[in-house]
Each structure stands twice: as C-alpha cells, then as structure tokens.
C-alpha cells in the first residue's frame, strides 16, 4: 500500500515538471494559434545555457535560472517579432515548418557545442534531500520545489490572464486578431510578449529538468511530446487543466514504471490516448471548437 502511495506521489510531483513544459506550449497556441515544434528544444537550449554558466563558475543553478529565464524571455520576444510573426496567417503550415527548422538547428548547434554526452546541473545535497512523512513514506525536496514552482507560475499566469489589461489583450487577440487591432492592440507586440512569457517558462522547465535528470542535445522532441500530451489531456485554454494534465501523465508514467521498467513512457502515452478517446477536447477544456 505504502509503495503505491509513494508511486502516486512521485507521479504527481513529476507532473509539476510536465506542466511547466506544457504551459509555454499552451500559451503560444492559446494566444497565437501557433504550434511551436521547437518548444522542447528551446527548453534544452536554456538548460545547456545554464550548464555553460554554472559549470565553469561553480554557480548555484537556481541563481543562474533567475538570469536565464528573463534572457530566454527576451529572446522569445525578439524571435516572435523578427521571424515568427511573419509565419502567422490563415495557413497553419509556415509556423510548423519554421519551428521544425529551429528544432533541427538547435539540436545540431548543441551537439556541436556540447557533444552528445549527457549533462546535468548539480544542486548538491538538495538533489537528494527528502522530507520524511512517517511510515516508509518520504517526499523529495527537489520535486516538491519544482511542483511549487509550477503552481506559482500557473497561478501568476492565471492572474495575468484574468485580471490585467495585458491578459485581456491576450484573450482578445486570441479570439479575433483583427477586432483586437480595432481596440488599439498591436498584435505583433502582444504575440511577442506571449512568446516571451512562454520562453521564460520553458527555460524554467528546462533548467529544472537538468537539475532532476541527465539531458542531451537530442532530448527536445521527447519533451515536446510530453508537453503536447499534458496540454491535450488538460484541455486547451485551461491553465489549471494543464497542471492536471501534467499530473495525470506523470502518475500514468510512474504507475507504468512500477509495473515494469520498460512500461513507464508507454503507460503515459496510453493514458493520453485513453483521454483522447473519451474526452477529445480534454478534461477541463474551456474553449469551444472553432
């Protein structure tokens, strides 16, 4: 029994990380109707950027994250303004192709710069620290920090979207880009800000991933897939749904892994397919079909 509770808890906490990956993806799709194929690769890029600074100078990864996340945000804004905005239009293919190109470029740039070796970020004792919960149960401090960070990020975004003029502008531009322009909203700027936020969040996800596990330059696409699954399970347009989607995916993987070490990732995919079969719009979808 204790073992199963432990598995469940591991899965839920893993879901925190998945939801961080998923949030950026949900944001760019939600506001720009754009699917960023390079989403996972940008996370890995941010993680390697952090590694490049942390290793030679012996800095604390959490401190470096405070610099890497805003820098990735700025990079995201500029990327959207200079390149990605040009790909947006009635045709959904150009953004897919261009971001697919980015995915290949980033993977190969990382390969050239950092080799194919796996790397990770070391946070010292924190990486293995845990809090005893009584009985044989314990919860890792690091997964707990990641989950709390995910909840904080989602809470902040929820507030931004529901209670601020910028959030209203995001939603208006998403609903009807042309009508939004008639309200004085500069869509190109709004899209830039949305991509900036998405990139900052994905940088957090990438750095946390590198703290939790080993990463290599080719890991991006797998991360994109988990992010997709978490978004679809949770339902498009629902931020808290994204958190739930990440948790369901995490729990499914943890349970699968417990049954058989080869079953972890497959179980996640199966859970995703099951949700898709029963609730094609996701569990907490807010948006209507358009």
């Amino acid at each position: 029994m204790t073992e199963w509770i432990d598995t469940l808890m591991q899965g839920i906490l893993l879901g925190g990380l998945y939801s961080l990956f998923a949030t950026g993806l949900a944001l760019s799709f939600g506001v720009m109707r754009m699917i960023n194929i390079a989403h996972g690769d940008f996370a890995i890029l941010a993680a390697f950027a952090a590694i490049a600074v942390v290793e030679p100078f012996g800095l604390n990864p959490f401190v470096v994250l405070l610099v890497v996340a805003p820098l990735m945000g700025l990079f995201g804004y500029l990327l959207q303004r200079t390149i990605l905005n040009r790909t947006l239009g009635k045709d959904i293919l150009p953004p897919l192709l261009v971001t697919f190109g980015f995915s290949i470029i980033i993977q190969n740039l990382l390969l050239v710069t950092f080799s194919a070796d796996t790397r990770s970020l070391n946070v010292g004792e924190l990486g293995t620290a845990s809090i005893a919960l009584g009985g044989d149960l314990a919860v890792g401090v690091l997964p707990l920090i990641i989950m709390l960070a995910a909840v904080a990020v989602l809470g902040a975004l929820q507030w931004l979207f529901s209670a601020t003029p910028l959030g209203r502008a995001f939603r208006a531009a998403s609903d009807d880009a042309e009508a939004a322009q008639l309200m004085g909203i500069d869509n190109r700027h709004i899209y830039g800000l949305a991509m900036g936020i998405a990139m900052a969040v994905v940088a957090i996800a990438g750095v946390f991933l590198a703290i939790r596990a080993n990463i290599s330059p080719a890991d991006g696409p797998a991360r994109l897939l988990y992010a997709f699954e978490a978004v679809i399970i949770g339902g498009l347009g629902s931020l808290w749904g994204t958190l739930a989607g990440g948790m369901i995916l995490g729990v499914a993987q943890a349970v699968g892994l417990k049954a058989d070490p080869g079953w972890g990732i497959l179980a996640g995919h199966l859970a995703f397919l099951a949700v898709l079969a029963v609730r094609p719009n996701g569990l907490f979808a807010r948006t209507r079909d358009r």
Partner: protein
Amino acid sequence: MSLLETRGVTAFYGDFQALYGIDMGVEEGETVAIIGSNGAGKSSFLRALCGLQKTAPDSVRFGGDAIGGLAAHHIVGLGLAMVPEGRRLFPSLSVEENLLVGAYSKRPGPWTLERLYALFPILGERRHNPGTALSGGQQQMVAIGRALMSNPRLLLCDEISLGLAPVVIRDIYAALPGIKAEGTSVLVVEQDVGQAMKVADRLYCFQEGRVSLAGRPGELTREQISLAYFGV
C-alpha cells in the same frame, strides 16, 4: 477644417478594385450616413478609414493629419473608432471585459464604464455575462460601447442594424443623441435608407465603388436616391 476628409480613396482586393476614388468628409459634431447596396464598397471604405485596408497616405486626413495606410491599432489612438460589421465581440471576454478592452488605447475623454451603463442600462445588469451570451441587440450595444471606451472623436458604425428587429434598431439609434452630446461625430454605413435619412445630417450614396450621390436628406428626392442606389 473638416474632422475627416478623404481624397481619391482607392481599395483593392488582389486584382479586384473595390473603391474608385472616394471624396467625402465629416465635420465636427456631424452625423453622416453612407448608403448603398451590397458590394457598393461601403464596408471597404470604412476598413480603409480605420486602417484595416491599405490606402494611400494622403488620401485620408483626420483632424488635418494624413492617416491613410497607418496601422489600425495606431489610428484608434488618434480618435477614430470602429464598430465592425457583425459586432465581432470577443467570446472569451465578459461584457465588462469587452468594454474595458475598448479602453486599451487609454485615450482620455468622457466615456467610462459608469457613463456607458447609464447609456445602456442592460449592459450594467449583464456585465459579468460572456459578451456573446447576449441577444443580438445587446451585443450591438456592447460593440458600440466598446468603441466609445476609446473616447473617439469620430465613431464609425458598419451596418449596426443588420439582422436586428426594428424595435431593437430603434433602441440602438436612440442612443445616438447621447453619443453626439459628448462631442463625438458619427459616420454610419446603412443599407436601410429610411433609417439613414432619419439620423443623418448629410448622406452619401455609394454605387460600384464610387460616390453616386451626396446631399442633405431633406434636399434629396426619392427618385434621385433610387437612381443613385440602384443605378436604374
């Protein structure tokens, strides 16, 4: 100096020319109506004015400044707001949020939420409903209110009576004097000639992308309008 003055406004959709040099104007405090049949170029003209349709810089002057071809989001800030055809409310925003998003350009002026709820009391009662959950007439009030929140000097209204019951149309047009009283000039595009004649100080009729008639409603005969409207 006219508030709005256009000289030779043209508009193209690919190879198709929708407007062939429109000359017209709106004076400060005036209500002007543009009538014409489907495809006469009325909506294309409004789209050119508000920046959604490309046109030559000097062909549109607003408050003396050349604004032709400026980006739509920039033009709103200059005091030219549009109530688009089909209302185009934001479905994921409540009534109040739809109105607030109209104030995005932060132009100073008399229009506030309170002032709008006084003009359209039903919107105050339903402020927390999704904008698109309202009846057609109420949605039109939101669309007008949303445009007013940018405190425009000139309000463009594209077919605001389209698809609405006569009694609802009357309610919406009843708000016009209140809007004019705040010093806002109004340019309405109408297919309903009777309605246009009632509200407008001056009238333009469009036919196949050209101005086919211009004048004051009282001075135009039925035959003149019929000829300008239908071309027969």
